[in-house]
């Protein structure tokens, strides 16, 4: 399994920030469709973050939903000085802190910085509290993606890895692979399509 830290060290977080910029801009202008795509993109991370503090899976979803609603309301105040996820992370931590405080439970003691949180294994907490079925499906998703990636032709696999793990832009990948940007677009899309075909079958089962 490829290391997430490695992804971060190679500038993946910066690439993600750039990737979110257009959706965030549109969401700030009132486009709920753009915000919906941001929620889909970050629902796993926010849920994983809240699951570190709240044990009950239903409660986790309630708090995560509240965090996203708060983020939506606060969108006009987001000035783009940090990555969207860093900003969202702080809202989620404050939401879970308030939630625990109102219930008389001990809120998180310190405000873990988002950068530090990125390095934590968010999956660990999920594995601790997931039902056996969920745990199994989670493992199957990871294995399906990895095995399909391994089966891909070299040029497709390399393009997708450079993008998703190294966090390189299409232009940088084109330079690294010595091919036109259009070819990079096509290779990354074809790699995703190949993995998606198997992933879709798994999720629909």
């Amino acid at each position, binding site marked *: *399994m*490829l*290391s997430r830290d490695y992804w971060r060290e190679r500038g*993946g977080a910066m*690439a993600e920030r*750039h*990737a979110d910029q*257009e*959706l965030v*801009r549109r969401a700030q*202008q*009132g486009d709920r*469709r753009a*915000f*919906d*795509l941001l*929620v*889909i*993109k970050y*629902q*796993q991370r*926010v*849920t994983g973050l809240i699951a570190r503090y709240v044990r009950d899976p239903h409660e986790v*979803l309630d708090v*995560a*939903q509240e965090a*996203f*609603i708060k983020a939506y*309301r606060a*969108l*006009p105040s987001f*000035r*783009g000085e940090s990555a969207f996820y860093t900003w969202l992370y702080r809202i989620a931590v404050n939401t879970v802190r308030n939630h625990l405080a109102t219930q008389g439970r001990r809120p998180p003691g310190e405000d873990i910085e988002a950068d530090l949180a990125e390095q934590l*294994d*968010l*999956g660990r*907490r*999920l594995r601790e509290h*997931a039902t056996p079925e*969920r745990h199994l*499906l*989670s493992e199957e*998703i*990871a294995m*399906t*993606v*990895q095995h399909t990636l391994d089966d891909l032709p070299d040029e497709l696999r390399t393009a*997708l890895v450079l993008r*998703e*793990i190294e966090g390189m*832009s299409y232009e940088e990948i084109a330079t690294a692979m010595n091919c036109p940007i259009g070819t990079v*677009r*096509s290779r990354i*899309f074809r790699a*995703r399509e190949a*993995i*998606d075909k198997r*992933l*879709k079958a798994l*999720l629909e089962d």
Partner: protein
Amino acid sequence: MSEEHRQRLSELQDGELAEDQVKDLLEAVVADPELRACWERYTLIGQALRGEGIDPGARILAKRVRVALRAEPPILKRSRIYPLPHRARSRLVVWALAASVALVAMGAVPLLQAYLRPTASPPLAIQLSRPSPALQRWQLERPELASKLDRYLVTHQAMAPATPAQGFLPYVVLVSETVGR
């Protein structure tokens, strides 16, 4: 769900989709739920590749948020979303300060020069305190009415709601103009 739309989703996932194509794609996503599902799977692929934990139970969250947001009022639009870079802002502040200092200097230097000039003419402060023969508020056939009109004007200015300078300030202005009459 066309292949073209899916390719655009892939590019949007990477922040590489042309700005003018985003709107059309978002409309297509609303019209076709399968495109939304495709976006989610593309996201999951990236997370799985990076070894991030995936909770299948969290996949319903977006739908819950979508439903909850229907009750929310639309957020206020902002014309400028991203601020100027820090360096540009610092430059602006420096320029604004320099312009303010220059403006003050342009106004203050002639006053100081006039004040410090030896004795060719009386000091400026004295000049200012002398009544100006040309200063005459009322052109009246009956000059004795001038003081009544002044009192009326002072009262009116002090009570008038149209000026933010209420109370004392208008009175000062009028009285200062009245000196020497």
